[in-house]
């Protein structure tokens, strides 16, 4: 399955979709599948300044904790409150209702540091080779 082409990706399996100067951030379908049942997401409060590739938060499955990294720099505008009550949304619709945060992009040019959908799919294909 190919990843949506309307956004960019990190090697750490986060995505960002830019809409004007607002970027919506989430994790990829591959990431949610690897994590298994997601039970909790720890995210920064609105107003927090993020730096590209720095730690964004943590995502927990029943028996694992993984760090999340921000694909872009900027200020957190909004946190997806839905996933606080229903973290399973991240499993069910990682590219849509399961988004994590919205960020006001400090430097849209940073998007060029990220992978395209095609590049990301290639990365996943390599990872899955035995």
């Amino acid at each position, binding site marked *: 399955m190919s990843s949506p082409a309307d956004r960019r990706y990190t090697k750490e399996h986060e995505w960002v979709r830019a809409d004007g100067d607002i970027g919506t951030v989430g994790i990829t379908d591959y990431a949610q599948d690897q994590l298994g049942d997601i*039970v*909790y997401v*720890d995210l920064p409060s609105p107003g927090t300044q993020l730096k590209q590739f720095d730690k964004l938060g943590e995502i*927990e499955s*029943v*028996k*694992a*904790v993984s760090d999340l990294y921000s694909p872009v720099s900027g200020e957190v505008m909004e946190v997806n409150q839905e996933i606080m009550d229903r973290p399973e949304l991240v499993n069910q619709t990682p590219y849509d209702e399961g988004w994590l945060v919205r960020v006001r992009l400090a430097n849209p040019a940073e998007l060029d540091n990220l992978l395209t959908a095609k590049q990301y799919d290639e990365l996943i294909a390599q990872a899955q080779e035995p």
Partner: protein
Amino acid sequence: MTLPYIANTAADRQAMLAAIGVASVEELFADIPAEFCIGELSLPPALSEPELVRELSALAGRNRPADGMPCFLGGGAYRHFIPSVVGEVIGRSEFATAYTPYQAEISQGTLQTIFEFQSMVCELTAMDVANAGMYDGASALAEACLMAAAISGRRRIALLSTLHPHHQAVVRTYAFGRGLAVDVMPPDGLALSEEHACLAVPQPNFFGYFLPDVEAVERAVHAAGALFIVSADPISLGLFQPPGEYGADVVVGEGQSLGSPLNFGGPYLGLFACRQQYLRQMPGRIVGRTSDAQGRTGYVLTIQTREQHIRRERATSNICTSQQLVALAATVYLAAMGKQGLRQVAELCYHKAHYAAQRIAQLPGYALAFDDLFFKEFVVRCPRPPSEVNRALLERGIGGGLDVSQYVEDGLLLCVTEMNTRQEIDRLVEALAEIGGGA
């Protein structure tokens, strides 16, 4: 030599070594460099079971247990009545010889009792969530202070000076690890700042007394943006207002009183409860309710990502065990005492302690050291050094109190529980009168 705890016979061992493909057991230890292989240890020779019973009974006989005489010693370890059902339940092999309930399907017994325990601790303290138990009241307090530091990002811990000195010492030990400063302050001289992660307060305190104005303390703590930690005597909570109702953020306590014998100081039980918002910073094991595919209710270890086996160096604590059998004793104890029984125990302690205090206060030379409200312990000033008073009491077959003269001049800390009959209290009073008269 055939040992009762080893099942393999010599023939079994030979057959197994053959199946393994070695000629001797020595080959299995070949990875141990020869320079480190040792000869015989210098342990005493092995004993048979009857010999063992004789030897340990003799050792036990060299002690003079507090539990075997009228005794008025408290100070953090208490003699309370233990219903026989407690021993019956915790003596069940199915509980005692199981381990951490990793495999929920065959550990529902342990898991459900932990859920009961958490529920009872929440009810008792009026808090939202409780863990499955910690080592003892002192380490639970230390863990609470570390948790407050982690939540607040602050580096100073404030302790009320009237906390049990041993508990204060344990907090210092844990604080040394995390590099936190510890400030000890008297109740009438709180000096909290925005550097303080918490203030920890005993209810009642080491000397048996409650804070005269706990609301004022709570306001001061929260005004400083710190967490309000209360270390409570769980038996007192049968009668007195629970800390959750006066603003505690974390409640800890020594759970030994709940169905465990004195045991020369351990194993005891740390109680730990907090507000819902701190759940994910809480140390220790937690059990939750859920269901299987067929909708049957069951219990599992949960919110495990806080713990060392998953989060490793970023865990909220390194603790693995939960004092499970001691927590089970507390669970059975609280279920047996129930709504009425625990209140009755607490009232008996209160009335008997006040009877004793009032009578001792009337003796020439003796006086109560404090006027504050107390529960089952109080301090009397003695006409002679408390150590001498204790010695003289022991000569009369009475276990005295705790000499606290290093904190209160000529102070003797006495504890009276439901285990002390009026006759015992009267004997104590008479003995104190005699002892004091010779001063």
